[in-house]
């Protein structure tokens, strides 16, 4: 086998530049990118079911329709159930939320007091003066500053999210046909390398997205069990929220940890052991993630050197805000594969010669078929 040269500094610069440009463009069409990504997750999750139905004797298109129909039914049932539960328990949810928000504010106040006592210099800091001390002030600030914006964002996102089942259906039905059409348009000389490129991108995305779903499930289970053993209320919901927040690399895990600590501090304000227990649980799950779960699920797909990952997270956040944070690593992974394979194709003199020869033949001989 001919050894393939590793990407050099120049190639990495191009990869980073294209990643930043893509994120900048994605920010403009984020309403399409997020449903697209969710549809891809749906496709990768449902594809085995479609293949099982094809093995059972259905045609590919019929199997796609059956599976998407089932997905649609399950989603509709889920939405109806959610509305029913929300309508019947809205009052208690409001009380619980208010309780924990107040608990969080008390916790912040206590932490602030403790910090000011230990470090008097902090009293002059603007940060220490900015935290609201009670629920009413916090609610007022929230309504004034964020509520209208949040509602508008939710309204803006609703139609976009309705695209998810449709896009999933389209990818399940015609994804393979589209892939074949794209490959058919590639000149013969670059055919094998293009196949390799598509396979690499497909595998990277599949293992990353499916791995992320498995990781979320494992994290939810571990955190839920740990929090239940510590006696924290709503352990499964908290575990799920923390696991989903962990989709944002580094920052998400810290936010999830703070969220659970606030709940623990509200439930057991006079038992610091429980709060420390929560922190310890988070550290343990983080270690489990890094050394056991990640290699088991996401594997080495889209994993880069930690320095590059952190640098890209900063760049992603600077270029496209929170969306950039979420998208930067998968986009970097795909761009890296595409750029590296294209570089191999374009610098392969034999392939270029073969392409030139085929064009020459095309000019001198009548077309095939």
């Amino acid at each position, binding site marked *: *086998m*001919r050894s393939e040269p590793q990407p050099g500094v120049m190639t990495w610069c191009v990869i980073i530049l294209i990643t930043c440009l893509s994120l900048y463009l994605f920010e403009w069409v984020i309403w399409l990118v997020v449903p697209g990504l969710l549809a891809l997750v749906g496709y990768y999750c449902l594809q*085995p079911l479609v*293949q099982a*139905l*094809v*093995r*059972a*004797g*259905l*045609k*590919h298109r*019929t199997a796609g329709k059956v599976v998407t129909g089932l997905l649609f039914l399950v989603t509709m049932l889920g939405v109806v159930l959610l509305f029913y539960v929300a309508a019947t328990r809205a009052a208690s949810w409001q009380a619980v939320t208010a309780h924990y928000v107040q608990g969080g504010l008390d916790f912040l106040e206590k932490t602030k007091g403790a910090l000011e006592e230990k470090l008097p210099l902090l009293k002059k800091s603007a940060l220490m003066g900015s935290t609201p001390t009670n629920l009413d002030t916090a609610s007022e600030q929230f309504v004034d500053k964020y509520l209208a914006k949040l509602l508008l964002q939710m309204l803006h996102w609703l139609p976009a999210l309705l695209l998810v089942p449709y896009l999933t259906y389209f990818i399940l039905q015609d994804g*393979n046909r589209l892939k*074949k059409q794209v*490959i*058919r348009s590639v000149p*013969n*000389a670059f*055919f*094998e390398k293009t*196949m*390799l490129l598509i*396979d690499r991108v497909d*595998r990277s995305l599949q293992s990353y997205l499916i791995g992320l779903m498995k990781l979320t499930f494992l994290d939810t289970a571990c955190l839920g069990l740990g929090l239940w053993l510590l006696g924290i209320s709503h352990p499964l919901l908290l575990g799920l929220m923390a696991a989903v927040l962990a989709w944002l690399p580094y920052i998400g895990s810290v936010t999830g940890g703070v969220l659970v600590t606030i709940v623990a501090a509200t439930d057991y304000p006079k038992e610091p052991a429980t709060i420390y227990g929560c922190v310890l649980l988070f550290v343990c799950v983080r270690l489990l993630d890094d050394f056991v779960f990640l290699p088991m699920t996401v594997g080495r797909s889209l994993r880069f050197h930690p320095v590059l990952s952190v640098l890209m997270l900063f760049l992603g956040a600077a270029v496209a805000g929170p969306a950039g944070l979420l998208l930067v690593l998968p986009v970097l992974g795909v761009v890296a594969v595409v750029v590296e394979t294209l570089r191999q194709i374009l610098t392969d003199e*034999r392939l270029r010669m*073969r392409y030139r*020869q*085929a064009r020459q*033949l*095309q000019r001198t*001989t009548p*077309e*095939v*078929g």
Partner: protein
Amino acid sequence: MKAPFNFLRVGAEDHRIENLKGLSLFKRLTSRELRELDELLHERSYQKDEVIFDEGDTGLGLYIVVTGRVKIVSSHAALQRAAPECGPGDFFGELAMFEESQRTARVVAAEPTQVLALFRTEFVSLLERDRGIGVKILFELTRTVIGRSRKLLASQPHLPTV
């Protein structure tokens, strides 16, 4: 075993599936299995004298000749003698299905040729989800590889035939 949803299928088998049935590599596959396999096959057309792959290229998949004819040119004289060309129904590049090694010969279309390409990575994923299909194809592939090896050994005057 008969597939449980067979009654939902309407009309005759696709013309394409019928054509696939006629290829020696897929002769053991049922229509249902051929339909699953068909999702992975890529059609390519080559002009006369166009190179399909070169000796020394990294092998990524095998090719089945549908129409036309291809010439096999190798720097290894014995290999050249053993399989000088392939016609409709024949396949070449089969070693790439087993490992990512260098191609041992250059394959050129001897006339306008249509081929079907099957890639190792896609075949491996098919093998993982439906071993039945994989085993049937691998059986035919192995038979051909053994046949070609025997022919190759027989063409060597100083080597015993296994």
